[in-house]
């Protein structure tokens, strides 16, 4: 028998019991769409997390105020100072760009409109270069702004949108913590970093923050290395430079790659776990196939006898019934994938910030799994059919 004949025969068999076949296919549809959606979901979460981490800039590492292995991380007071950032920039033998940051949350005002969530970031002029973050209008902070403690600010996209609402903000005055700041630039949209809206920021000269907020405790020092290969040795040098002034528990140096690795591990476990849970539902679908095929073989015993009497070999009968099981699983697989695409479209429409798309890897895994499932659970009933004794089968009523 040719593949075409086997397929035709199997489809005829399935058509004979439409409702039953459809219900069996439904089991596979649920299993396949569960696999596709859950794997895609976890891969999407991974790509969003890595995307977010990468959005901080490329080839960078971060010096933070405390060693995460020390016990009092939560209550640590930063011992990092602007002078440390300067020293890294001067003494690190690799080609590095350094930008310090002090964060403060306060009320910002324009006219009658206010925002209480905006983060005031005191930083240096090279932040756009270090963080790969462009200014879309106006300019960023300059050295002279820092030297003269100027009351100028560059605002994030969310601040611009909410407070100025289409009015050109450049040259206007933003009231920060009761003081007037002249807006000199607007940053491009950056989006969320986990649950922090990076666009809800106002950048002001670090020297101005030191003066008005009376603090010089840095929250972060971000270091950019021009060559990716130099990240590790440059980090070692930075550790040595800082160790001269600070206790080793007072600072922590971590590269973007290390942060990514941690999230990769977490999301990989998540993907495997969700995939395995979904696979269970597909296995249940497979058991459904086996159940239905066993019933079909019993019901069609006489048909098997007739086919054998006119010359069907055991292998012909085996392939006919195996093909039915595989067709059920493949049909379920294809419809399941279609259902997943529709579900992904609906999720994306309902939650526009979450760009949910179906992963090809998930589709392939699900199809392969469905096919193997159909074959595995179809073999026993098909084998049973193939090995029926022709006389017994012919006299079955």
């Amino acid at each position, binding site marked *: 028998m040719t593949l075409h004949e086997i397929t035709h025969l199997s489809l005829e068999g399935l058509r004979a019991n439409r409702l039953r076949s459809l219900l069996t296919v439904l089991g596979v549809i649920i299993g396949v769409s569960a696999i596709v959606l859950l794997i895609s979901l976890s891969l999407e979460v991974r790509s969003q997390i890595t995307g977010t981490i990468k959005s901080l800039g490329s080839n960078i590492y971060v010096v933070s105020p405390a060693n995460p292995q020390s016990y009092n991380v939560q209550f640590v007071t930063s011992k990092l100072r602007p002078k440390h950032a300067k020293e890294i920039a001067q003494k690190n033998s690799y080609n590095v760009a350094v930008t310090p940051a002090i964060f403060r949350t306060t009320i910002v005002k324009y006219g009658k409109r206010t925002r209480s969530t905006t983060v005031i970031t005191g930083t240096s002029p090279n932040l756009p270069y270090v963080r790969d973050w462009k200014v879309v209008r106006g300019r960023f902070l300059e050295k002279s702004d820092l030297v003269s403690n100027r009351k100028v600010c560059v605002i994030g996209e969310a601040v611009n949108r909410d407070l100025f609402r289409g009015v050109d903000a450049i040259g206007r005055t933003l009231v920060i913590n009761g003081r007037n700041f002249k807006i000199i630039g607007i940053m491009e949209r950056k989006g969320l970093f986990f649950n922090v809206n990076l666009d809800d920021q106002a950048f002001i000269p670090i020297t101005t923050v030191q003066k008005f907020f009376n603090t010089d405790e840095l929250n972060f020092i971000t270091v950019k290395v021009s060559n990716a290969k130099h990240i590790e040795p440059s980090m070692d040098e930075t550790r040595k430079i800082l160790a001269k002034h600070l206790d080793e528990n007072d600072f922590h140096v971590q590269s973007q790659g290390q942060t990514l690795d941690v999230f990769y591990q977490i999301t990989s476990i998540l993907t495997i776990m969700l995939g395995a849970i979904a696979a269970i539902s597909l296995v249940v679908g497979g058991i459904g196939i086996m159940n239905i095929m066993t019933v079909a073989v019993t019901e069609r015993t006489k048909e098997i006898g007739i086919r054998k009497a006119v*010359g069907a070999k055991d292998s012909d009968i085996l392939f006919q019934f195996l093909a039915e099981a595989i067709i059920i699983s493949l049909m379920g697989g294809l419809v399941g994938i279609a259902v997943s695409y529709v579900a992904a479209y609906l999720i994306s429409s309902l939650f526009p910030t979450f760009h949910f798309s179906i992963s090809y890897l998930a589709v392939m895994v699900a199809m392969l799994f469905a096919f193997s499932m159909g074959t595995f659970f179809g073999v026993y009933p098909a084998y049973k059919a193939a090995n029926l004794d022709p006389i017994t089968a012919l006299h079955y009523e």
Partner: protein
Amino acid sequence: MILSVRNVVKIYELGSIKVPALRGVSLEVEKGSFVSIMGPSGSGKSTLMNIIGCLDKPTEGRVEIEGIETTKMDRSELAYVRNKKIGFVFQSFNLLPRASALANVMLPFLYSDQPKNHHRDKALKLLRSVGLENRIMHKPNELSGGQKQRVAIARALVNDPAIILADEPTGNIDSRSGLEIMALLQQLNDKGMTILMVTHDHSIAQHSRRIIHLSDGRIIREEIVKERKCALKELEKQSTLEREEMS
């Protein structure tokens, strides 16, 4: 010689009990003959048919079809012989209920390795030759008993078999349809087809050329039919009588 059966013994084992169904049967069937096997139920005639038809294997003895021994063949080789050399006509027709008359006739082609180009034409020709040209797409439940048996005969002929094995071919149909089936089988035999038929009805057996009587798994008697009945003439006679009764 189309068929040769030598010292065939068949013993069924039901647990520890051994039930002999055939106790050493030998017979030979020449090409173009029409042989009936008669006997009461339990005489072993169906067992003999199953063994000749490669549906079952004997416990002892050998069977040859066209000089090829079938008793030592494996399941796959037996399937090949059933497809190529044997045409079955069963008492209960054994047609696929969901398939049309045409699809039923074409069924053996599905398992044959012949080129597939003229299959449909050949099946249609056979359906015409058994008088079912107007019933081609009908399913078995839309056909009468006699018509179903004609479909079965067309199916039996489709792969040009060496022998037709008919197991009580008139057992499930009315007497007139039975005569029509016998007329069809006689026509085929007249054209050279070898037919081996099992029946318990002596008047039906009289349509063949030779009768083998079986009892308790042994051949007890063989007879040559001297005055062979002609089913076609019987049908004409019946029609004349019916016409006379009507008038």
